């Protein structure tokens, strides 16, 4: 029994248990117990991983197990993790855990949590597998619950948003599918196993030229790559709190992770040759998202565009293709996942009380709900890259790493990307200033309650994670950085 399988089995077990019950109390206990178990499991995994890694510093992946599945097609179900996947699993667990508390008072809770568990199965499964087939399968498993989660429990133009989000992401996965099939046949030996393709096989460059864009684009859509990001504002704006958290916090990371693990890792030559096209697109994403966020008035739109900008930075750094930048990219994924989840948790909290997300209709919330407001400020500061919080270490690693590339093109792009930190400050402070500070805009808001205990758990949990990463980045960075070496070697070997 491989410990990694537990990440899929626990949510399956939760689904099974949820089917059996109808009482709100039991549902909550199941979810809390399950989410806690997953969180504990992630921590255990981190510890085990570090210990194993100390014993075996060479192996690319640890905890590898493989079960033959579709033998005639040479498809097997293979799991394994390196430092990056461990980090992503940890992130997922934190967000799943906090998301449960953020959706404490859902109506139709049973159904909601069923879908929620399904979504987490997809997410966990994606991160534990190192087999393109199962990766793709879990990827789609993670996408489809979004439709119902947004469509049923969302707000606003939810049907439109849910449909748009699902179709655009599925459109992306169409590219991805073609790319994966291409990899399957062109690598020289029909196999989906990532490690095998990477280490023993080679995709000819003429095939890489079309497979690389297909896979990068496919994953990039989920990573909110310009110009395929428009699902994000509408989708996030309509989604319920926990779903926004999970989606922006983890699901969008699937995109970055996939670009990294599949597109770049397996096709280094094409990455060198065609990377610049996507580098421009991601560069645009970074600045464009930030500029768009400046003039939005809906809190969730602001955050969604901010995600476009931040996730753009992830892809941007991945395409810089050196160790530091890639480490930064993964750290940015973690950091963005945490802080954007925090944002969405707080926006949900605020929206649940004020029933508006329009920043022009709010004001002076700091006085009314100090706890939530302070958390919001912290989230904002993390987002604009304040040292001591996670955003800073991630962004700086990216910038320093990107700058290590020779060549005017990449240098100029890095400088342009750097500009986003100013624009980020503008929209974050604008939002904070409008909604938290100033006089109270609406008389009715005066009697609103501050965060309830379960909301406090979710926000404090996220803040602790953000602060931990901000204060002790080297632990995270080292774990990630070591896992990037094989990829860098492949890139350098070109």
């Amino acid at each position: 029994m491989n410990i990694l399988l537990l990440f899929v089995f626990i949510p399956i077990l939760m689904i099974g248990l949820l089917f059996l019950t109808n009482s709100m109390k039991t549902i909550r206990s199941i979810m809390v117990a399950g989410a806690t178990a997953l969180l504990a499991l992630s921590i255990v995994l981190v510890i085990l991983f570090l210990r194993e890694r100390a014993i075996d510093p060479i192996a690319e992946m640890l905890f590898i197990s493989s079960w033959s599945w579709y033998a005639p097609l040479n498809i097997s179900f293979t799991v394994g993790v390196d430092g990056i996947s461990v980090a992503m699993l940890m992130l997922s667990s934190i967000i799943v855990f906090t998301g449960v508390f953020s959706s404490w008072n859902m109506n139709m809770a049973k159904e909601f949590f069923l879908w929620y568990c399904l979504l987490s199965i997809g997410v966990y499964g994606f991160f534990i597998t190192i087999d393109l087939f199962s990766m793709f399968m879990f990827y789609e498993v993670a996408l489809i619950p979004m439709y119902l989660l947004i469509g049923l429990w969302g707000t606003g133009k939810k049907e439109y948003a849910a449909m748009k989000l699902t179709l655009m992401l599925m459109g992306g996965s169409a590219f991805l599918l073609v790319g994966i099939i291409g990899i399957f046949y062109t690598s020289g030996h029909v196999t989906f196993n990532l490690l095998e393709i990477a280490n023993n096989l080679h995709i000819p460059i003429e095939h890489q030229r079309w497979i690389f864009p297909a896979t990068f684009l496919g994953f990039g859509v989920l990573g909110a790559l310009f110009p395929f990001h428009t699902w994000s504002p509408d989708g996030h704006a309509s989604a319920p709190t926990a779903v926004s958290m999970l989606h922006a916090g983890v699901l969008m990371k699937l995109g970055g992770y996939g670009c990294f693990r599949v597109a770049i890792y397996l096709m280094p030559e094409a990455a060198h040759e065609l990377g610049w096209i996507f580098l421009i697109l991601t560069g645009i994403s970074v600045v464009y998202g930030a500029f768009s966020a400046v003039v939005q008035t809906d809190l969730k739109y602001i955050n969604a565009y901010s995600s476009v900008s931040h996730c753009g930075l992830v892809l941007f750094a991945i395409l810089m293709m050196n160790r530091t930048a890639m480490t930064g990219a993964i750290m940015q994924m973690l950091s963005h996942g945490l802080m954007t989840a925090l944002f969405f948790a707080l926006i949900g909290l605020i929206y649940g009380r004020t029933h508006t997300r329009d920043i022009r209709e709010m004001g002076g919330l700091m006085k009314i709900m100090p706890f939530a407001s302070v958390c919001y400020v912290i989230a904002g500061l993390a987002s604009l890259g304040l040292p001591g919080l996670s955003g800073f270490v991630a962004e700086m690693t990216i910038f320093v790493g990107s700058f290590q590339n020779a060549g005017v093109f990449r240098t100029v792009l890095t400088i342009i990307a750097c500009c986003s930190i100013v624009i980020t400050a503008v929209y974050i402070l604008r939002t904070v200033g409008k909604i938290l500070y100033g006089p109270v805009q609406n008389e009715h808001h005066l009697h609103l309650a501050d965060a309830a205990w379960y909301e406090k758990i979710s926000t404090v949990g996220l803040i602790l994670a953000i602060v931990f990463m901000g204060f002790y980045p080297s632990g995270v960075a080292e774990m990630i950085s070591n896992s990037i070496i094989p990829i860098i070697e492949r890139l350098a070997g070109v």
Partner: protein
Amino acid sequence: MNFSNFLLMGQETGLIVVVIILFFCDIFSTGKTAKWFYPLSIILFSILTLWGFCPKPEGEAFGGIFVTSDMTVLMKNILNIATLLVFLQSYRWLNSKEQSEEKGEFFIITLITLLGMYLMVSANNFMMLYIGMETASLPLACLAAFNKHQEKSAEAGVKFILISALASAVMLFGLSFLYGAMGTLYFNDMSLTVLNNPVTIFGLVFFLGGLGFKLSLVPFHLWTADVYEGAPTSVTAYLSVVSKGAATFALIFALFKVFGSMDIVWQNIIWWLSVITITLGNLFAIRQKDIKRFFAFSSISQAGYILVGIIAYNAQGMTATVYYILAYVFSNLAAFAVISAVENQSGKTSIAAFNGLYKSNPKLTLVMMLSVFSLGGIPVCVGFFSKLFIFLAAASAGQYVLIFIVVLNTVISLYYYLLIILAMFIKEPEESAVATFKSDIYNRIGMLICVVGILAVGLVSGIYSYINSLNWVI
């Protein structure tokens, strides 16, 4: 005459025996015993289905006009399962006031069409294929017109019989050319003499037209929606799954066995047919209001996917296609089980009738959801695997552009499948919404089988491996 030939026709013989038993039961049953007729038919047919899984001899009979192999047995088994599922869904419809007198006819006619399909699958000669097709089509027209009191049903019958007759005429015309070009109608002999000349190509295209009618490929598809809408729901289910499956199998054998050496020609044709079939099916499906019509167009686009598997022209393509049909059987029939349950309860077949179904009938909704997810190719439903496998098969023949177009079409298809989900889960129910009800036990068994099929066939890889192991050499 060598009677051992009939041993090779075990399944056909069994089917005929069942038909005869049912025929006599139907004739001699009185008012009291009539209620046992339905369970008896189900039991008999289930036995036949199960028996189909016993090992069978392989070989050619009647001078090579009829061939049986593990593959054909498997195909027939798939058809059997599908037919059984259709029977299970039809309980309430057959026991309704209007239909209760005609139960026997329904079973007997349906089983005879099934016999025709057996012959199509096992045909190793174009005449056999033709006879099988006609045996399958003509009773189907009766079935389409089975709701005698309904104008729609009558119209569906007319449309079906006329177009089907024309289609078979066109196919015959094609066959006559093939015969003229090669001098024989035996698959085995034809494959030796087939030449890429205009007469053969004409023959091939006309033949494809005839089969394309059964598969409802564009441009031979226009009857599909009307007949599906007008025919009784169980018949629609039968048409959309069993009839289509049989035609697919026949097409595979004909193309692979006979036209193997001119694969470039028919691959081109199939390439285009598949692209326009999927696209047009999708485009029509997105604005349908009636759920049966909706599934008609959905099944048209599914037919396009089937062609993607066939185009590979290798063992992998064959396996993927057969697997696809199996997946399609479970997925589509799950949907039709729900449709017929709702229709028999409320008499409505509009998509709007499904609005808010989740609130009143959550279990039905879940079955329907699994079904459309499977049709849309969402994991872990079997549809995901079957789609992926046909893509893999097509890619093994280098058809990346086709895959890309088809995969993009999946997105459109997902859109309309999600419309069903939207209606069931998200839309508020109308005033005259379907109330909470309990479906009959047979339908529930049927749904259960479908659900198990949808979930298990994909995850349990043994099924694919088994199909693949029927080492069918081209």
